[in-house]
């Protein structure tokens, strides 16, 4: 019997959890799940808590399962001990709730930098003195090593985070990331929040993925309420998601080339990105389409002028983009920087369940639009590009191919957009019959977002968890950079383009 199906029989099913099962298990089943995931029988989707139990989400092929372990003694068997991708997630749970993952090999705080005045903000909240010992970075041993501390304030216009390089001359021996600087306590703010406020918070987890977060959160709420969304809204959401993907991929392709000092690509890609944002504004009234996806549908409709704008956009992109791709492909000095730089090995991408272009550039073909899949992508035709090289170049090419796929998707959506309502009042249409829970997995431009929500009987959000794709991508950057030169770090980092805000939450 497949691993997940066998596991699903070994706990008690939580009835009001949709669309995939959640089961409450004991510590033995929890440990067996860890061993199975570490052996590659399933991929870890997330590890989080709601203040009462600790949840572990996993996927194998199209089957998703959440197992929940009660923690009466405020301890649970560490997942990270056996399966390293869970390390940061467990350090975060430890900081936020004060629970002890037993056997956790790295017990340094992660999101808690000792500045909140309290510890365990989502748990017992004991006050703590501000003068905590300094964060100890991991050691690198050997002769002729020096350290380069970078951040949290970086030289470019990017988010804050700290990178500690240990280098031997030009060559990076070890990179250690320290994140958490933009931790805003979103999970705490979501607790007992009215649905409307929680939706707005979800749209501001990571601004570059605001549509994808909107869809993920809305789908989780709709799953909890067993709510059916109008077909027009389903397609409009996908349309916005593909516009968001286009805008981000253009920005990234240009910025990666810019970090290799090839500004011509940056300029042209920047213009294409601006075209997309202006089209988004013309169609939906906001350049990033923030707050346009809500539980129950969408908050903006597309009129005839919008359709004309989108057709014009596609014409512009189809006219300009191929020349830029040719330029990238034919510039040897640029290829010299990107090819064989910052390699992520396929084994690591698989182990970490790395989503998006990072996984797909390293042989992991996973795309949440396909597996487990969600409407309307089942009825639309698109390819999921995959490469195995795992270098900066491969991550550029995956983006290039995805631009082409997104253009095709936008065309298909505009052709089949049905007439009809775009929104139903979620709570009025399906008032919750007691507490209910929903889970969603949605493909943002950088990978799969996991959204889990518990809706209380009064329609408020009791608690929610949003897992950014970056959780399983940031650690791979540490691996990818090893043996590369310091000067190639910006290039590698941009080719990953992980979210600080999405991770720090």
């Amino acid at each position: 019997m497949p691993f997940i199906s066998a596991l699903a029989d070994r706990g008690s099913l939580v009835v009001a959890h949709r669309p995939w099962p959640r089961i409450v298990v004991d510590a033995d089943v929890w440990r067996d799940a860890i061993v199975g995931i570490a052996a590659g029988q399933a991929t870890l989707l997330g590890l989080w808590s709601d203040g009462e139990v600790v949840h572990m989400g996993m996927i194998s092929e199209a089957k998703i399962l959440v197992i929940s372990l009660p923690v009466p003694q405020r301890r649970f068997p560490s997942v990270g001990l056996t399966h390293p991708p869970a390390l940061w997630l467990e350090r975060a749970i430890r900081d936020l709730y004060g629970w002890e993952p037993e056997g956790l090999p790295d017990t340094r705080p992660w999101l808690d930098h000792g500045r909140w005045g309290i510890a365990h903000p989502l748990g017992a909240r004991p006050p703590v003195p501000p003068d905590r010992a300094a964060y100890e970075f991991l050691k690198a041993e050997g002769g002729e090593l020096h350290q380069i501390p970078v951040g949290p304030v970086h030289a470019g216009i990017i988010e804050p985070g700290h990178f500690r390089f240990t280098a031997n001359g030009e060559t990076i021996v070890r990179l250690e990331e320290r994140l958490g600087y933009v931790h805003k306590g979103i999970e705490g703010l979501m607790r007992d929040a009215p649905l409307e406020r929680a939706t707005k918070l979800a749209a501001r987890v990571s601004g570059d993925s605001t549509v994808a977060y909107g869809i993920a959160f809305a789908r989780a709420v709709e799953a909890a309420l067993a709510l059916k969304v109008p077909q027009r809204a389903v397609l409009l959401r996908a349309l916005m998601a593909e516009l968001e993907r286009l805008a981000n991929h253009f920005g990234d392709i240009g910025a990666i080339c810019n970090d290799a000092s090839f500004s011509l690509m940056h300029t042209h890609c920047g213009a294409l990105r601006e075209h997309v944002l202006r089209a988004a504004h013309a169609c939906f009234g906001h350049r990033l389409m923030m707050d346009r996806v809500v539980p129950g549908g969408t908050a903006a409709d597309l009129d005839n002028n919008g359709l004309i704008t989108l057709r014009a956009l596609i014409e512009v992109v189809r006219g300009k983009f191929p020349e830029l791709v040719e330029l990238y492909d034919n510039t040897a000095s640029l290829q010299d920087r990107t090819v064989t730089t910052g390699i992520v090995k396929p084994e690591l991408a698989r182990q970490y369940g790395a989503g998006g272009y990072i996984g797909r550039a390293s042989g992991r073909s996973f795309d949440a639009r396909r597996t487990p899949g969600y409407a309307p992508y089942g009825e639309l035709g698109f390819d999921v590009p995959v490469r195995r090289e795992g270098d900066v170049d491969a991550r550029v090419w995956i983006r290039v191919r995805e631009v082409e796929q997104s253009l095709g998707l936008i065309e298909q959506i505009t052709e089949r957009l049905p007439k009809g309502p775009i929104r139903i009042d979620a709570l009025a249409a399906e008032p919750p019959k007691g507490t209910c829970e929903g889970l969603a997995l949605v493909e943002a431009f950088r990978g799969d977002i996991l959204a889990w929500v518990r809706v209380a009987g009064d329609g408020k959000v009791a608690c929610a968890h949003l897992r950014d794709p970056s959780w399983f991508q940031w650690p791979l950057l540490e691996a990818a950079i090893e043996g590369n030169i310091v000067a190639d770090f910006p290039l590698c980092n941009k080719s990953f383009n992980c979210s600080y805000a999405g991770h720090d939450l």
Partner: protein
Amino acid sequence: MRKLLFKSLLQRPLTEAPPAENERVLSELARTLERAARRRLGRSLSIREVDAGSCNGCELEIHALANVFYDLERFGLRFVASPRHADVLLVTGPVTHNMRTALERTYQATPDPKWVVAVGDCALDGGMFAEGYACVGGVSKVIPVDLHIRGCPPSPTALLEGLIALVEKSSNSS
């Protein structure tokens, strides 16, 4: 590459006319800059961007200022890599407790005279994140702010309006 460059020579530039000075922005500036340093900077400002806790939406639009449509540098405005080279700090986000020290140090590292522009609704008063355990609130709770540019996120045009007004006032007030 030659083909692309040649085409660019023949095309009209994509760069657009600058936005008119915004009255509300100007009046806020007039108040704050009276107290500010009077040394002449010329019509030129160096800007250091600091994300003190934003969702990165504001950063995306600040980035857009550099694209060919808005072409920030034609106004004498440019982004610099260090606060030590900056006249203006462009700060985004509700200031998180974890970023507070970094923001204070960045401010201290910026030579006088200096101006602080708080960008976005979160930078004004903490926005949706004001109530949590993790955020201090608006930028003005940590360092003095000369100008707020509203929006979630503000459009590149709104950002340009604010920054141009800042250049005008900083050169007039000399």
